[in-house]
């Protein structure tokens, strides 16, 4: 009531410029994503490109302050921040977001964030060269993350189950210590394990990119229900910016600059280069909410239920809201820029 009153007053005295706008612009928009290491406040995802290259700022206008937060605490930390209303948008891995959704905190999936390559490494000196040989050994991961999911998926693909190995649930830094001290024989991790290999501590026996693209860790871009309800137009602007960032990254001539941007986060340039080697960023960082994306998320939801990570069911169809993305693609004329993939990642149509 009061706000609409104020609004009409504003319209009266404020002039015609914003008179037509049905919604007031938010003073600031808060974004969250996973960050790492020292260096600047920047991450290694699409959102970081949108941030540094100013795609979103350009869409929402300079009057709106954009606040980007990169969390070292990964999933749980972002969940907590969303639940506390500290974030309006976030890009992070599927499992933590499923856990949050299951508790009933309102979010919408508005774009895919692309996949993260997952590496399986073992301590150097151990006679283990394949996933099958992990049987009877201890593997360290952080539970309730895409790494957990990826490990179990990979085991399944190799005819092993959770019971064939010992899982040590540790945070990244502690995983290093566990490997270095010999408490753990193997680790499933992201590109952050590559420097360890370069130091000669571990050898890589598995990468999802090479061995099973479906086990590549999915991520998504979210908006909170509260924000989307209050600022539907701004939400659309943000998604437009996000898609523009994806389009920019997809162009081969920008690859080098993108890697440089991500390297500011503290993840080494060499690691990033290797993470995306032999691959088009166009394919890996596909923002489309297609069947492949939905398939991976559905897998994640099943997994979370099996592992008793969630108490309530998550209905994916209620959760994914493709309308913003569709509108953005139409606005930008990019309907056919990224192909449709089936659940296995194969291109079905264009």
């Amino acid at each position: 009531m009061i706000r609409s009153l104020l609004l009409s007053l504003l319209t009266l005295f404020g002039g015609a410029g914003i008179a037509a706008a049905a919604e007031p612009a938010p003073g600031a928009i808060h974004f969250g994503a996973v960050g790492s290491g020292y260096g600047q406040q920047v991450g290694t995802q699409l959102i970081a490109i949108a941030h540094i290259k100013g795609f979103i700022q350009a869409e929402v206008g300079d009057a709106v302050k954009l606040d980007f937060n990169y969390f070292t605490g990964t999933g749980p930390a972002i969940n907590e921040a969303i639940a506390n209303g500290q974030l309006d948008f976030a890009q992070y891995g599927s499992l933590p977001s499923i856990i949050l959704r299951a508790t009933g905190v309102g979010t919408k999936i508005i774009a895919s964030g692309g996949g993260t390559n997952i590496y399986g490494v073992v301590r150097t000196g151990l006679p283990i060269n394949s996933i099958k040989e992990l049987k009877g050994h201890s593997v360290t991961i952080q539970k309730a993350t895409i790494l957990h999911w990826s490990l179990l998926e990979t085991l399944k693909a190799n005819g092993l189950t959770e019971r064939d190995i010992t899982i040590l649930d540790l945070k990244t830094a502690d995983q290093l210590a566990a490997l270095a001290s010999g408490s753990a024989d193997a680790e499933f991790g992201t590109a952050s394990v590559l420097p360890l290999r370069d130091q000669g501590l571990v050898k890589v026996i598995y990468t999802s990119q090479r061995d099973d693209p479906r086990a590549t860790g999915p991520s998504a871009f979210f908006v909170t229900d509260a924000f989307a309800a209050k600022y539907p137009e701004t939400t659309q602007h943000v998604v437009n910016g996000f898609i523009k960032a994806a389009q920019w990254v997809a162009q081969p001539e920008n690859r080098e600059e993108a890697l440089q941007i991500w390297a500011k986060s503290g993840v080494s340039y060499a690691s990033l280069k290797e993470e995306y080697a032999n691959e088009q960023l166009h394919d890996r960082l596909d923002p489309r909410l297609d069947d492949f994306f939905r398939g991976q998320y559905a897998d994640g939801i099943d997994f979370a239920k099996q592992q008793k990570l969630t108490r309530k069911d998550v209905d994916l169809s209620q959760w994914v809201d493709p309308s913003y993305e569709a509108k953005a693609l139409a606005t930008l004329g990019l309907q056919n820029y990224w192909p449709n993939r089936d659940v296995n990642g194969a291109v079905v149509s264009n």
Partner: protein
Amino acid sequence: MLLPLILPLSVLLLWQIATAREWLAPQILPSPLTVFWTFVDLVTSGDIVEGLAISLRRISVGFAIGAAFGLSLGIAMGRSAKLEQYVGPSLRAIAQVPSLGWLPFLMLIFGIGETLNYVIIAKACFVPITINTAAGIRNIPVHYVEVAHVLRLRRSAMLFRLILPGALPTIFSGIRLALGHAWIAMVVVEMLADTAGVGYMMTWGRTLFQIDIVIVGMVVIGAIGFLMDGGLRWIERRLRRWAPVHA
């Protein structure tokens, strides 16, 4: 008297109202009933009992090791001023570094697992017990020491009749401090770098964003801390029956 119950009950009531009226999202503040049923679940499923058994075993072993070393070194330092001058400053500096600071190294040396827990808990006990034992012995009134000399007490009598009972109050507050520190250190290690125990259960609750599990963990940790402290007070009272009772 009902007076002490007023505050907890009104907090509980406010909590219930807050959740019933959804002042706070239930994900952030689950209702007291949810917490209660989670507690029942965790007890009947054996999760809590199992976690507690692990935690209590850790604390017993770690405490035993730390106390044994602490008492020995403390007695030696209390009796030899020279040893105290050599070791004392380093020990007090070590006391300034919280267990959290040691964690990175100890993890590399001992790996992740029970040894690490024992070492950290033992260290948490060792420092306060050593410092307090040494201080307790040094602060035994010189009056009594003179009596012991005049009576030419043997070494054993000196230790068991004068030094230990004389230093007992100080040693005991060291032990209580040590057990408190040990409990904290253990919860910290379990929360940060372990895969079992009550502390891990809480971190897991945080990961799953199930705050009811977190609250249950807090209550359990508080209750155990309370019982341990109460138990030690009781033992101390029994050991100090010679002391006049304060009104």
